């Protein structure tokens, strides 16, 4: 079960040694167990301060959104804060009936609207009024934000959640005497969630999209880039979903999604801090043992077809220009993954990365530029991404061509030994820094466990990095950074926006 990579390159022997010591000291602090329903727990003891961080990792993300319902995973994430049949209600029997009434009116409204051009406008108006009244009635039975209030007033810190392409994450921290409260609150919201205030929250989710995507020139650019780079795979959609899909979500859609994907075996929980693992296990059984075992969701997934030739997309924007170039790369389980990460670090890590040195520091054509080895996720074949903010007076095209020169350079010659060693040392230090906080640990160990089946991969990954040679880096650059598999996306301004600072150089 436990992967071991003992064949280390000589120059890194000392370095890797101290990491394996760290791993050993972590082994002593980590307790793992799986409940009968399949829910896996990873508990990390750190008793320096009387605080604990919790991380619930769902192996479901926006890639699992049903067709025509992009953003649904994210919509459920919002509903997970709405409480249960005992938390968040003034009168559950009455509220339950009121919620059902809302759906009935909504069904009638959709049926009338579904008649298209033959729909009766007066009937639609009347049904809309009826719907608003039904929603108001249901809302009047809600104890607003009770779930949040219980967590926050008990000292819950940094409570939030996130939905990404590959996963959905729920997290916060408590003073360590409140551990049982977390077990109660977290298990109950996934056992018995009530999707109250669904349609108001749908408006909130729609506002979130306006804020993150529609009102941000970079958000719009990334959305266009993904929709261009992917023709079929759901990585083509931003995790927030498309506006039209969001506006038509129905409560039963989210409930179905929850029943399908929020099964205990699809859930991993990390707990890090001042926690007794024996107690944690007892409480896990008591509270999370209530979640009924259900089959893991099937993962039918559209494969992205092989890209045949460069794609380009231009987005009009009055903002200063921005350029994104994305190359297809395999998923994170590819044997080339470690070499791709090293290539990324050679290209853009810190002030010694090739891109910074060339484009920002020496030629001074970019305000900022860099790369990212894995975007937007890693579970499925993804993108190796380059991004550039051109400096004033320097065009997107000039920057694009310069970037290609750098890419050609890493394909033409191997990186020198000093550079390669530097990158490996930085990757090792990066790991050590990840171990410094409870919340970071709880999250990292969950995501490594889910992705690779073992949290120890967080440590053993370094051995894989250490094995990467200069030839490997060159090979993956040649293999993946090819024009036929690239998508170029950029913004362009209207001609009336002059270069403000052509003489500033």
């Amino acid at each position, binding site marked *: 079960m436990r992967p071991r990579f003992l064949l280390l390159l000589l120059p890194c022997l000392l370095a890797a040694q101290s990491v394996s010591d*760290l791993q050993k000291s972590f082994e002593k602090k980590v307790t793992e167990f799986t409940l009968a329903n399949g829910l896996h727990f990873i508990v990390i003891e750190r008793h320096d*301060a*009387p*605080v604990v961080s919790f991380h619930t990792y769902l192996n479901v993300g926006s890639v699992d959104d049903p067709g025509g319902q992009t953003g649904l995973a994210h919509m459920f994430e919002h509903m997970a804060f709405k409480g249960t049949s*005992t938390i968040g209600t003034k009168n559950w029997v009455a509220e*339950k009936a009121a*919620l*059902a009434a809302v759906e*009935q009116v909504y*069904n009638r409204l959709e*049926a009338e609207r*579904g008649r298209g051009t033959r729909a009766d406008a007066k009937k639609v108006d009347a049904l809309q009024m009826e719907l608003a009244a039904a929603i108001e009635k249901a809302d009047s039975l809600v104890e607003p*934000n009770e779930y*949040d*209030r*219980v967590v926050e*007033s*008990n*000292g*819950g*810190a940094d*409570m939030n959640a996130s939905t990404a392409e590959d996963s959905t994450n729920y997290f916060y*921290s408590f003073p360590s*005497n409140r551990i049982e409260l977390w077990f*109660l*609150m977290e298990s*109950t919201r996934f056992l018995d969630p009530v999707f109250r*205030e669904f349609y*108001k929250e*749908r*408006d*909130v*989710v*729609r*506002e*979130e999209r*306006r804020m993150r995507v*529609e009102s941000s020139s970079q958000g719009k650019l990334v959305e266009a880039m993904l929709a261009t780079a992917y023709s079929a795979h759901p990585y083509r959609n931003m995790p927030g979903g498309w506006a039209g899909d969001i506006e038509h979500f*129905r409560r*039963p859609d989210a409930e*179905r999604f929850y029943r399908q994907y929020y099964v205990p075996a699809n859930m991993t929980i990390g707990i890090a801090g*001042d926690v007794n693992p024996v107690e944690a296990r007892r409480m896990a059984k*008591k509270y999370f043992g*209530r979640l009924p075992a259900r089959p893991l969701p099937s993962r039918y997934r559209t494969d992205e077809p092989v890209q045949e030739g460069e794609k380009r997309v231009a987005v009009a*924007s009055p*903002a200063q220009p921005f350029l994104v170039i994305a190359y297809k790369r395999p998923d994170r389980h590819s044997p080339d993954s470690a070499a791709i990460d090293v290539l990324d670090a050679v290209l853009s890590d*810190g002030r*010694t990365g090739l891109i910074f040195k060339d484009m920002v520091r020496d030629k001074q054509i970019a*305000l900022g530029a860099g790369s990212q080895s894995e975007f937007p996720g890693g579970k499925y074949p993804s993108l190796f991404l380059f991004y550039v*903010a051109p*400096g004033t007076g320097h065009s997107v095209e000039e920057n694009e061509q310069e970037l290609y020169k750098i890419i050609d350079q890493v394909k033409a010659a191997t990186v020198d030994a*000093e550079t390669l060693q*530097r990158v490996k*040392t930085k990757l090792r*230090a990066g790991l050590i*820094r990840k171990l*410094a906080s409870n919340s970071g640990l709880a999250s990292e160990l969950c995501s490594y466990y889910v992705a690779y089946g073992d949290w120890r991969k967080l440590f053993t990954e370094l051995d894989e990095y250490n094995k990467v040679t200069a030839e490997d880096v060159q090979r993956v650059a040649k293999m993946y950074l090819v024009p036929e598999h690239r998508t170029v996306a950029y913004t362009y301004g209207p001609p009336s926006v002059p270069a*403000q*600072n052509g003489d*500033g150089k």
Partner: protein
Amino acid sequence: MTRRRLLFVFALAAVAFAQAPAPAPVPATAAIPAYKDLKYPPLHQIKIPEPIAFTLPNGMKVFLLEDHELPVFNGLALVRTGNLFDPADKRGLSSIMADVLRSGGTREKTGDQIDEELENIAASVESSMGETSASISFSGLSESSDRILRIFHGVLTGPEFRQDKIDLTITQMHSGLDRRNDDPQGIAEREIASIVYGRENSYGWTVEHEHLARIKREDLQAFYRRYYFPKNIQLAVYGDFSAPAMRAKLEALFADWKVEQPAVPAFPAVTAKPAPGAFLAEKSDVTQTFFTMGLLGGTLRDPDYPALEVATNILGSGFTSRLMSQIRTKMGLAYSIGAGWGAAYDHPGIFRIVGSTKSASTADALLAVRAEVEKMRTTEVTEQELRTAKDTVLNSFVFFFDSPSKTLNRLMNYEYYGYPKDFLFEYQKKIAAVTRADVLRVFRERANPANLSIVAVGNPQDFGKPLTGVGKVEKIDLSIPK
């Protein structure tokens, strides 16, 4: 037809689910308490780390804190200066100085050589400029602590300010300035500061191309000489080392740095006058209006600070606040909405309400927010709201102590701004004592909506109702002077 039938099935499914019994078996639920009935054991003792404090012979104050959990080594030098000291005609000078302090290298090494040397050992030394303090921080693995300290010492005591890096930083700042209107939230934040503090002083002014163009190497050197001297610096070092050995190292390392300068004067005083009204910055490429409402707030020393903090939390902090409940949860008008009292250590900060809403609901959202402020100062909050707000602060108090570096940073700030060491514990006591009447009184005195400046960044063509419903509207000129 088909669609209708599908919908019908849909409806059945929904009803069936709503009527299904809770999936948990009955005996199991019986053992599960309600959250209200949970009893909590006493919290384990908070261990407050005690840094070792001393002063080097050259006058530099030092704090050392050992922390052996991970093999890392970190430090922070706090310098008494800030961009509030920028000359009016050379705005941006201090930030450029701080940047080139690091990138411009030392007498022996260029900045690029330092980059390589540091990254070879996965370490960093960074210099930055804030409003009322500057910092040089370092970080790395403890195995490299000697080399990191040597580089840190070189950067702090002997920056060379090479011209090529001055040119680079200024070019970057010109480019950055040209992008300052691209982010609507950034515009709202910048403009509220300019409006509340006034545009003609270093609290509220903006850096323009003409200022950057005037800045020369001599200016950087003069700024550095004036503020970067031992008596004007506090240094904190924390991580995996032995304190006595570290003390000896620092004494030896800084033995040759004995520069003296007259004491640094106080930061300029805030001379703000209320500037109520609505200020509109037009931006065509957004579907939301980003807004900030603000007025001049106070300092952490303010006797009413704890009550103001509780009041602001009830109004707009966290997911339970009034703004969140009303504007987001009940009205569905915003994803992001919140308020902060924004007290600073040494000068009045800005009380802010920040949010964004779709263009069409701009006026509705602004009016609803202002009504919530008004309600805070006309009616006492409920007992439950007060208890929630106080519990939120008091029960999360332990997070002030969840890492040794937090404690160290706080102590440094108390020292830097002349606050008592037990300030946080006094604050804790005062929070516990805040009453509903206090909350009403402080908001009555300090948060008059008639004084609020409202900055709205958005596309007025799509506003459902005109902004004039909110007040007299003044347009903000976003053009960037050459």
